[in-house]
């Protein structure tokens, strides 16, 4: 009895839903964020480091400073727009890096099997054995923080997920007719994997990227919040929350506006990602 009531509404909803209202809102928000990141120089009312000690800690709604100012009289809105850019650029670069290396290692494991496969699995186990935040903190402790290191470090986030997925899918694809056929036709392994197998696993990879992207934003924000990620004078969302924390009692808006942007952005990506997953790959 439960079975009959459980399944049909789900399928019906999935077919009917062309673009649910929440997903539209999510996509709209994401578009706004991307525009902020792209046209930061046009949108930003003030330079992010411009101080004005006579308007310190102005509350939101002050003419000229709609989101208020911080402890040095810098405009919160300008810093927010700049922060959206740095957080998105880091997350975007890192997602591409980790998808690239994860897929490469996954394909290599599937192609060569044996020792290569064992090494990849061992590396994945290693990644699973260390919470990523701890590993990043250790690396930052040993090498000190820099923007390049931060992007590379974040680029390690979640590679094992792609590797695991591509390895599994590539192995099962190799057993299927189409891969065997192109191999028989004399195609080189690179051609088989890039031209024939990759397009067939691409949708799963894209869905994984929508899962990793918000997690990277959160990871970078956490590191920056702890004061170990993006360093001043650069600014990022986590970094703003971290500095705003000291003015929690007197000027909570310094911390609240970047916090709201972080939450809305990750929420929007999750909603859009869920919808995409239902469309592209319901098995994930």
């Amino acid at each position, binding site marked *: *009895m439960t079975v009959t009531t459980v399944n049909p509404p789900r399928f019906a909803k999935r077919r009917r839903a062309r673009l649910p209202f929440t997903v539209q809102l999510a996509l709209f928000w994401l578009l706004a964020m991307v525009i902020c990141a792209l046209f930061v120089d046009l949108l930003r009312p003030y330079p992010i480091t411009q101080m004005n000690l006579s308007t310190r800690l102005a509350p939101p709604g002050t003419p000229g400073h709609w989101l208020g100012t911080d402890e040095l009289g810098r405009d919160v809105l300008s810093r927010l727009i700049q922060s959206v850019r740095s957080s998105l650029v880091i997350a975007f670069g890192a997602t591409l890096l980790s998808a690239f290396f994860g897929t490469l290692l996954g394909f290599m494991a599937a192609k060569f099997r044996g020792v290569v496969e064992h090494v990849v699995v061992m590396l994945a186990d*290693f990644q699973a054995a260390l919470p990523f935040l*701890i590993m990043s*903190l250790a690396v930052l*402790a*040993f090498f000190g923080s820099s923007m390049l290191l931060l992007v590379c470090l974040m680029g390690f986030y979640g590679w094992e997920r792609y590797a695991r997925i591509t*390895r599994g899918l590539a192995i099962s694809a190799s057993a299927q007719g189409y891969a065997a056929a192109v191999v028989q036709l004399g195609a080189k392994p690179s051609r088989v994997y890039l031209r024939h197998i990759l397009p067939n696993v691409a949708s799963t990879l894209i869905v994984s990227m929508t899962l990793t992207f*918000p997690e990277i934003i959160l990871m970078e924000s956490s590191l920056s919040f702890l004061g170990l990620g993006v360093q001043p004078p650069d600014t990022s969302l986590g970094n703003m929350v971290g500095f705003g*924390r000291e003015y929690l009692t007197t000027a909570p808006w310094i911390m609240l506006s970047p916090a709201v942007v972080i939450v809305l952005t990750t929420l929007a990506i999750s909603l859009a990602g869920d919808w995409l997953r239902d469309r592209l790959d319901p098995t994930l």
Partner: protein
Amino acid sequence: MIRFVTSRLFRAGLTVLSVMTFAFVVLRMSGDPAQVLLGPDVPQNVVQDFRDRWGLDDPIWRQYLSYLQAMMQGDFGLSMRDRSPAIDLVMQRIPATLQLTIPALILQLAFGIPAGIYAALKQGTLADRSVIVAAIVGFTVPSFVMGLLLVLIFAVTLGALPSGGASSWQHAILPVLTMSIGGIGVLARFSRSAMIEVMGAPYIRTASAKGVSWSDVVRNHALPNAAVPIVTIVGFMVGSLIAGAIIVETIFSWPGMGRLLIVSVTNRDLAVVQCILLLVAAVMVVSNLTVDLLYGWLDPRLRQTTSAH
């Protein structure tokens, strides 16, 4: 079964070894370990003693072996701060961290799993929707934002709870809440989808068709099968609890291991960082191993294969 357990143990050992190797490589890449682990103003004889003991004048492979040996004996170097062994400093902080993580884990399990199962059984109802929305909010709000919001509401505005420190049990309320909310959301969402998947399986239909009562179907047929994926995610959550402790202890000035780690990273007190790194890896490996073994116990099919990937 014996083969299953030994292969898991072997992999766990290999993972610990790879974490140690990671620490070794990173440490060598960042400079002279004697300088790095002992600090700049240490007497020459102490440095020489350290070099001899760790064999820093030996070829690199000998160094690697003696490094592993030192790790095994619990010799992680000296803290830069007060020249005491790093391991002692870390050990002093562990009880405080456990005071937060254990209640948080209990709260996550006690609220997350039942909420998810309840939502799955009432799928499509208002109760289900509210669980989903609460879960999504729970895990999209990062813990540092959640913690600051709780401080803003309960400490700054209401003045009901202390905002930082560790002198009474009231001080633990906000940190434990902050740490558990995200995990409750993750567990609720995950248990819900695991349960929904199981409830759609043919054996549930068979059980219902042959007249087993609904509560028996849920208790004897659905729950044991949903337990397998739920146990896996609980294993992962140990890692996020440790990561959460770092942030939460920083927000609430809680004198635990996480705060020690942040202070040590900021001061580049590498001996302490390395010690915490290996300790966390050991905890994670043990918890992953426990999950794997529980998995084998819950799902007899997995005992047959040596690799669960």
